């Protein structure tokens, strides 16, 4: 134990000196965004365009998940938080959400799976392990591989909320972190079922990845349906500020909500706001 404390002391001693320099360098015209890894690539691109149009301004984007975005915006560690879900009621008391785009979550199966439709109840039973073979929902005699998201992902929260499930009830065979990983897992396993962003899935599907998107409640899982708000399993991509934003943060948020970034939103396979 002595070793640990000694090491910390060294590091601390070195760093006290360094941090003095570091704080002296920190500039004034800087915005820090943290949060959802889903929004981060989009925020980064919006930030670059904003920097080009406002010389001298810097937009730093950091990831770590929606919950982190909420916490950092609340504690002031970040100027703007990013969360790929709607605000919870206790969060909405302190934070203001600014929607910049929409994202839909779609259920994906392997292309070779003959099942073309699942009811909410069937999906629920598959994810809780009550249905373990595709035969039971009109498919081939094949074991179902349930792909679930890791704890802390906003996709997981949206999925659980929609299907009224609790994560401990889910009997997952594979636990994944991000959309790409989910798509790769399902594309590599004919018996797998998973859920990912529709924008991502639609892109992969049109580029030959062997997956299919299931319709939900009779509504096709498509980018168009998400934009029009028809698709049941969709989520907003929000920027969060503590109270009403002012100054630079206000200008950045207005820019991120404007039609000037629609091409960037589409390029990240998200759905621009309906205006």
């Amino acid at each position: 134990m002595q070793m640990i404390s000694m090491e910390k002391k060294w590091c601390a001693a070195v760093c006290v000196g360094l941090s003095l320099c570091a704080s002296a360098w920190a500039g004034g015209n800087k915005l820090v965004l943290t949060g959802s890894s889903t929004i981060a690539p989009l925020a980064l691109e919006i930030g670059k365009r904003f920097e080009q149009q406002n010389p001298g301004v810097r937009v730093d984007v950091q990831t770590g998940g929606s919950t982190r975005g909420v916490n950092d915006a609340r504690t002031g560690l970040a100027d703007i938080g990013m969360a790929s879900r709607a605000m919870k009621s206790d969060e909405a008391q302190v934070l203001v959400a600014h929607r910049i785009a929409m994202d839909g979550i779609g259920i994906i199966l392997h292309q070779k799976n003959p099942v073309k439709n699942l009811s909410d109840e069937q999906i629920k039973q598959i994810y809780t392990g009550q249905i373990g073979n595709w035969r039971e929902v009109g498919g081939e005699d094949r074991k179902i591989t349930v792909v679930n998201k890791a704890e802390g992902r906003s996709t997981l929260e949206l999925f659980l909320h929609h299907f009224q499930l609790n994560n401990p009830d889910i009997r997952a065979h594979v636990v994944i972190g991000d959309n790409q990983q989910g798509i790769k897992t399902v594309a590599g396993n004919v018996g797998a079922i998973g859920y990912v962003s529709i924008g991502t899935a639609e892109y992969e599907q049109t580029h030959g990845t062997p997956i299919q998107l299931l319709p939900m409640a009779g509504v096709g899982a498509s980018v168009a349906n998400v934009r029009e708000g028809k698709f049941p399993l969709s989520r907003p991509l929000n920027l969060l500020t503590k109270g009403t934003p002012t100054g630079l943060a206000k200008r950045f948020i207005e820019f991120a909500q404007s039609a000037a970034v629609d091409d960037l939103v589409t390029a990240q396979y998200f759905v621009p706001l309906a205006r």
Partner: protein
Amino acid sequence: MRKHGDALLTAAVWLATALVVGAFLWLLGDVVIHGIGKLDAAFLLDAPQNAGRDGGIAPILVSTLLILVVALAVAVPLGLATAVYLSEYAAAQLAKPLRVCLNMLAGVPSIVFGLFGNALFCVALGMGFSIWSGGLTLACMMLPLFIVTTESGLSAVSSEWRRGAAALGLSRAAALWHILLPAAAPAITAGLMLSIGRALAETAALIFTSGYVDRMPESLSDSGRALSVHIYDLSMNVSGGDAAAYGSALVLIVLILAINSVAVNLTERFLQARTTA
């Protein structure tokens, strides 16, 4: 009977080696085949565009190297000094528990170092997401590994040499500098290579410390994305980022090979040259 046993053993050893080499070649081949198409001068010299799908990795390469330089500049002197203390100065009953602690630290998952680095450097010391924070976190991660390997190298030097040095009237410092450290050079090199490898491969600890910003860093207090974080983000968060991810992975492998051979050369020239001088 014995002959059969020998043949069996030979076959097993060959098979195991072939499997290991095969797996490595498969991995390398996969990265090269998918990544080589992306690799050209523009990829190394341009900034990333469209979330990394297009453009290059120049700022990311620079950030990666800066993070590594900070980490090595802190870890190497501290590590060498600690290893010397443990092997040459510390009493046995003190050195033993310290070694146990170091071995435990060496096995701590990197995400723990990442969270520790975030709490200490980014938040408590107010350095924010920066190359400093990332480099210092990596230094903390490298230290146990580097100390353990260096110390084992020093301990392996025969005590005859120490007595010989003392008999010649060499001071402790001179004996260390001219005899013990050069003799332990192979172990120090190995420790350095392991540390560099661990640092360049690190993703989890860096997402929370040096961060995600892919702009060209202007100073060490800027946030800068490391190559491994870039590969992770491209393959996990960016649809259609696979090609760029493979290209970056290929660059990372080449970078590790290049830096390691430079490190080997430098340590050998610097330390071993003096044993013969």
